């Protein structure tokens, strides 16, 4: 018996978010005495190297022409084959859109299995905590199926670090091909800025920005700080920023060192995605805005005045500290 962690790659590169699932696997390994294996798809040489340094029993690479592009259907076939091989009692992945799409598909492939989504804490071998009601409530769940599938909330577990011991990397050819779904394209959001879920500073923008033209005010602040840009649903719905900028219950979950919410009211669905940030700053002209209830530092002001001023003063500070 063992634990199987699925590590996600994009364009060959290991997604850092997957390292949270590895940490969760380590905690489970300690509680159960089981070893953990890692399974990945289409890794670059660098990603293989990184994965082999995470203390896994083995690193499996599933191979197949039909696995070049992700589909839940084909990846689920591969995962269930490897899970069988290593007699996986637990299957874990981080709850990115990849993990959210893929993991529940496994339930029908793996006899006597069930799943818990977005685990934030491991209590014991079959008891886990997760947030419900957009984070208003914490639920403790017990999972009694023989095989347990867990998606892991990235922000709730540290990213696993390197260990000295190196794991063997094993390639596994997967033959079965599900043909009733075809990948067509991925239109990637291109950005020079850090990835939202990995950035240590996030500058997030809400409807208060009023016009897509004004987003540059926020971008300038983000660039001084080396920050990623996030957004409320309102901004994404309006088409002012791409969908994968959305922070919240149904968007991304972030927990950076510093989160600056600009012109965001602080609806529970937004707060659900950022309230574990270390320091929260809110800039909003409405003193009653709910965002101030969770902000460590609040500034009641017109963002069009104070954000450019903040950017200028931080720029100066940055130059001084560099010089």
């Amino acid at each position, binding site marked *: 018996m063992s634990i199987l962690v699925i590590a996600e790659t994009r364009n060959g590169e290991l997604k850092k978010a997957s390292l949270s699932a590895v940490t969760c696997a380590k905690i489970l390994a300690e509680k159960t005495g089981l070893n953990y294996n890692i399974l990945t798809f289409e890794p670059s040489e660098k990603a293989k190297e990184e994965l082999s340094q995470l203390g896994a029993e083995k690193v499996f690479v599933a191979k197949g022409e039909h696995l070049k592009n992700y589909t839940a*259907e084909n990846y689920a076939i591969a995962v269930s084959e490897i899970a069988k091989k290593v007699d996986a009692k637990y299957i874990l992945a981080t709850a990115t859109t990849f993990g959210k799409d893929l993991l529940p598909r496994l339930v029908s492939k793996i006899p006597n299995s069930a799943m818990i989504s977005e685990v934030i804490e491991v209590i014991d071998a079959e008891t886990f905590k997760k947030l419900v009601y957009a984070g208003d409530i914490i639920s403790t769940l017990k999972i009694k199926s023989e095989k347990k599938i867990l998606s892991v909330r990235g922000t709730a577990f540290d990213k696993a670090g390197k260990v000295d011991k190196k794991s063997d990397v094993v390639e596994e050819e997967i033959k079965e091909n599900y043909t009733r779904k075809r990948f067509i394209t991925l239109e990637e959001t291109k950005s020079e800025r850090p990835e939202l879920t990995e950035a240590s500073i996030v500058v997030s923008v809400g409807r208060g920005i009023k016009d897509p033209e004004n987003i540059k005010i926020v971008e300038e602040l983000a660039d001084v700080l080396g920050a990623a840009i996030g957004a409320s649903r309102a901004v994404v719905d309006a088409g002012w920023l791409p969908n994968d900028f959305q922070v919240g219950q149904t968007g991304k979950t972030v927990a950076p060192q510093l989160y600056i919410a600009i012109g965001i009211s602080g609806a529970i669905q937004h707060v659900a995605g950022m309230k574990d940030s270390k320091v929260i700053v809110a800039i909003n002209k409405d003193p009653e805005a709910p965002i101030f209830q969770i902000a460590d530092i609040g500034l009641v002001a017109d963002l069009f005045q104070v954000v450019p001023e903040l950017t200028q003063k931080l720029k100066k500070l940055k130059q001084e500290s560099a010089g």
Partner: protein
Amino acid sequence: MKILVPVKRTQDPYVKVRLKPDGSGIDTSNIKYAINTFDEIAVEEALRKKEEFGGEVVVVSVGTQEWTEQIRVALAMGADRGILVDTGGKYIDHVILAKVLAKIIEEEKPDLVIMGKQAIDDDANQVGQILAGLLDWPQATFAYKVEVNLQDRKAKVIREVDGGLETVEVDLPAIITADLRLNQPRYASLPGIMRARQKPLKTIKIEELGVDLTPYVTIEKLETPPPRKAGVKVKDVDELIEKLKEKKALPF
């Protein structure tokens, strides 16, 4: 084209949910109920496809008698008929729910199932994918745009994923789960509400479906997360920067 839409009754998304003072469960005294936000989007999408291709939209709920209220709303929006699988209040987990829906689907044989990507109460985001697996149908989750080609029995779906927008093609029948930006659901009109009263709504007892009702996943405890400590308000940008320095929150 026949489209089936599973619908869940959940809390109104804009009210804060609290526990009962003794922590034994959710305090439902102040809760208003609605169709789960994502399911409402799924109903809307099904109606648009029906408008395009003709056919029938069937709404299914697995819950208690009270849930007929939400089924009636979907019928008032324009769905043709409803099915309530009556649980009698019995707790069911996601695997049981997916198995129950699979039974209904085997019976109804829809060309397409459109459902919400997640319920805003348990925030699980599992049922569509489990169901697709059980039926061995293709799945297109987190849908942002759906184009059906009925002649070729295919659908092209644009999905909201972490890196951007992904396009996939699925053969019908398929499971599609709706994301927020798929559409803007219509309101039920008054004539719609009147008509909904006449539309067929069948009740089936969950026990009649022959699904094992022993849950794998059970809720042990509910609790309120510790509140974030209230912070300070600053008067201007200079003071904001001072505070940021104090908290060592700046990278320079």
